[in-house]
């Protein structure tokens, strides 16, 4: 019996973010008008779809023990450059190739980041920060005005709707999260990535190609940021040079809310999804309540602070639960031996 109770306690602890979400949804449905409608719920997911991919990108790199601040500029750079390139080559390029080129550009950015950080042993914070500034500068220079008149195939992923008014973007986000859940839980790659973040030296001695893992994590992050760029482009119907600005810090917030830590080696994809949903929920109901935009930023900042506090409290509770369990086993053993002795 006690085993079941302990398991339950641990499950609640590990998924605290979802408990918070359920609580928030419950409160909001009662107090906020127009919140608990089908249309609004879908809307929340739709508007957090590109941030969702960024959170995933950031989370994967954080799990590997590094940090990627360049994703917010990659989000604008990859689709912008891809479209400019395609238009320069020929006016009639298929959207599939355009999307492929976008993703390849994201991949190359990730590859360069990863190579610089592993081979030249650069600090990931400084390296990706400067990459971010370089990419944003290039975007501002190359796209002085927005790129419009995109082919419908290119904007399909971000704008189209399927059955029940659910946007394709929402489906894409969920699919990608599902794929990464599988990768992180069930594949060798995922396991090695977590180990690398947890202790790179020990992972190397245990036979893991640590540098390769880190480079892969940056490539994944670049590709995901480029995909987020495609979704954003579709939603807006154009490519602007301000796309993704300030989303880098929000991606960090989402990942940390979802249980990922700066030290690496911790966090799950399911938790990250929770982080995304929580951020989306906050945005949505503060909007519905017509709270001032600057206050929203402040409230989000508080949320991040809260997440960090929760994280340390959580580990302490976890340890105390396990210790209680050990004590119980010990006392049981002693009682048994006393009975035998008599």
């Amino acid at each position, binding site marked *: 019996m006690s085993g079941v109770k302990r398991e339950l306690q641990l499950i609640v602890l590990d998924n605290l973010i979802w408990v918070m979400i359920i609580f928030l949804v419950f409160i909001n449905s009662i107090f906020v008008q127009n919140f608990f409608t089908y249309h609004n719920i879908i809307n929340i997911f739709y508007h957090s779809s590109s941030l969702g991919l960024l959170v995933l990108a950031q989370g994967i790199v954080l799990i590997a023990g590094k940090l990627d601040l360049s994703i917010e500029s990659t989000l604008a750079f990859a689709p912008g450059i891809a479209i400019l390139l395609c238009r320069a080559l020929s006016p009639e390029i298929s959207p599939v190739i355009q999307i492929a080129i976008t993703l390849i550009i994201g991949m190359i950015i990730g590859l360069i980041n990863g190579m610089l950080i592993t081979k030249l042993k650069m600090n990931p914070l400084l390296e990706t920060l400067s990459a971010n500034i370089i990419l944003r500068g290039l975007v501002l220079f190359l796209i002085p005005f927005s790129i419009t008149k995109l082919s419908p195939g290119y904007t399909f992923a971000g704008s189209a709707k399927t059955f029940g008014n659910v946007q394709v973007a929402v489906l894409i986000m969920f699919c990608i999260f599902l794929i990464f859940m599988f990768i992180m839980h*069930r*594949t*060798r*790659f995922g*396991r*090695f990535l*977590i*180990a690398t973040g*947890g*202790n790179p*030296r*020990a*992972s*190397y*001695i*245990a*036979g*893991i*190609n640590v540098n390769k893992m880190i480079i892969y994590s940056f490539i994944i992050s670049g590709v995901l940021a480029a995909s987020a760029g495609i979704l954003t482009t579709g939603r807006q119907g154009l490519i602007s040079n301000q796309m993704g600005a300030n989303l880098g810090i929000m991606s960090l917030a989402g990942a940390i809310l979802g249980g990922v830590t700066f*030290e690496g*080696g*911790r966090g799950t994809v399911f938790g990250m999804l929770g982080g995304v949903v929580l951020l989306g929920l906050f945005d949505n109901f503060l909007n519905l309540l017509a709270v001032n935009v600057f206050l929203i930023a402040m409230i989000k900042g508080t949320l991040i602070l809260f997440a960090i506090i929760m994280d340390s409290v959580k580990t302490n509770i976890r*340890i105390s639960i*396990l210790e209680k*369990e*050990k004590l119980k*086993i010990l006392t049981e053993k002693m009682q048994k031996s006393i009975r035998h002795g008599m």
Partner: protein
Amino acid sequence: MTLEKREKITQPEALNKTDNIVLEVRSLSKVFSGTTALEDVSIKFKHGEVHGIVGKNGAGKSTLVNILSGIILPSTGKIIIKKNDKEFNFLTPERAKKEGIVIVTQKPEIVPDFNLVQNLFLPQYKETKIKTIKWKEMYFEAKKVFEQAGFNINLTRKMSDLTLSEQQIFLTLKAFYVDNQDIVILDEVTSSFSKKEQDFFFKLIDEQKKRGKSIIFISHRIDEVLMICDCVTIMRDGKVVETAERSALNQEKICSMIVGTENYDQAYEINKFSLMKRCKKDAENIMQGGEVLAIEGLTKEGYFWDINLTLKRGEILGLVGLVGSGRTEILKAISGIEPAEKGWVILEGLEKRKFLNSWDAIQSGIVYLTENREEDGLINVLSVLKNLTLSYLVRLSKDFVIKVKKEKKLVNELIDRFKIDTVSPEEEVQNLSGGNRQKVLFGRVASTKAKVFLLDEATKGIDIAAKVSILREIRERLSLSAGVIVTAPGIGDLLVICDRTLVLFEGRITCEFKREEFNELEIYQAVQGLNIKKTEKIR
């Protein structure tokens, strides 16, 4: 205060006291959970004397030193400081310093990014009235100290640019001239010294002795101890075997006292006996086993030179040597973790190879168990399950996808087999106790089904019961289908399970002992670089 003033205050007092004793420990004991580290230790340290303390790993030297410098508290006993006739039940680091005890440890305590002057005066800088630091004055004073000692070095260099032995000399100078206390403890500072540095160091000690300092000198190298000490205390198993004048001692005598004859733990003794009996039976099987590993001319400049050895399937080969003799470096070079510059590794008599990274070596069947469990071994934030299967995951998965059921089954087997005490396989490994963590690490290595196991101090820092179970595992399971090279903190453990032992001295293999020739005293002397039988090229 300038240096001269400080000297005047501290120098002459102790001379007048009876017997010239400056420091005494009286029936000191220390019990850690389960083990006794010190038992009824009484030693007297005299004024103007170099007092050596020698003993094996775990003999209680470092416990004693840590008590004297106030880092750990003794369980019972008294520490008597004669200067002011004070008696203490325990010391704290501040109290120890106040009473005139300063320590230089084997791991230098420095600020790497500060320069020498900044480090030299570290806890207390000279300040003007408005609390700015008098850099110039400090620089000149530092220059004076180094000129006085004859240690030529550029004072504006960063501390991290110095070699380990230069840092040790620097800290020793600091202890003598800047801290300028009566009693200076040198805890294995000489282990990385070259001949030239050693000469300088001994000259320094000699001078300081004449200045009236009392020096407590701890070392693994008996020749050094005999060269500079006036008086030597030999410790074994937490007890003082003897304290004797230098003139009454020689190297053989000290070695035999360090090694001793009786062994203390009965349970361990019984298990040892059963393990040894098995060994004889296995010896015949080994002769039939093929050669699984050969090393040819392995060299890494500055660490080890021209290492040649062969290992048969089923054989357990012991590698013994002092810290710095190259045992860890050799094992790391074989397993590709820190590759050697020259030399070849030959697996199962096939082609000559060189492993340049850990994963190639593991895929080919060479697996290494690190001696640094906390930093290089376990991944603390991951669960017991994930730690256990990390090196074996490649064979537990198909097309990159892990076979979860198979993995769980394997992990449960391993937990049962090694009796790992954990609430569930999902518990994070950092919540486990030290012995259990070592079992997890050992379990990871043992489960790999490698051809060659390189076990670097597999029994480090664990209790007797866990030690016996790991030794048993090496003998009865690992060596059945593979060759094993082991090193261990004590020679005793190696004698229990090894079929053959190679002795390393200063980066070279100096001699070989077969099982029938095992003799703890002889091996210990060989480790010290003594009585080396000139063996023909060892293969």
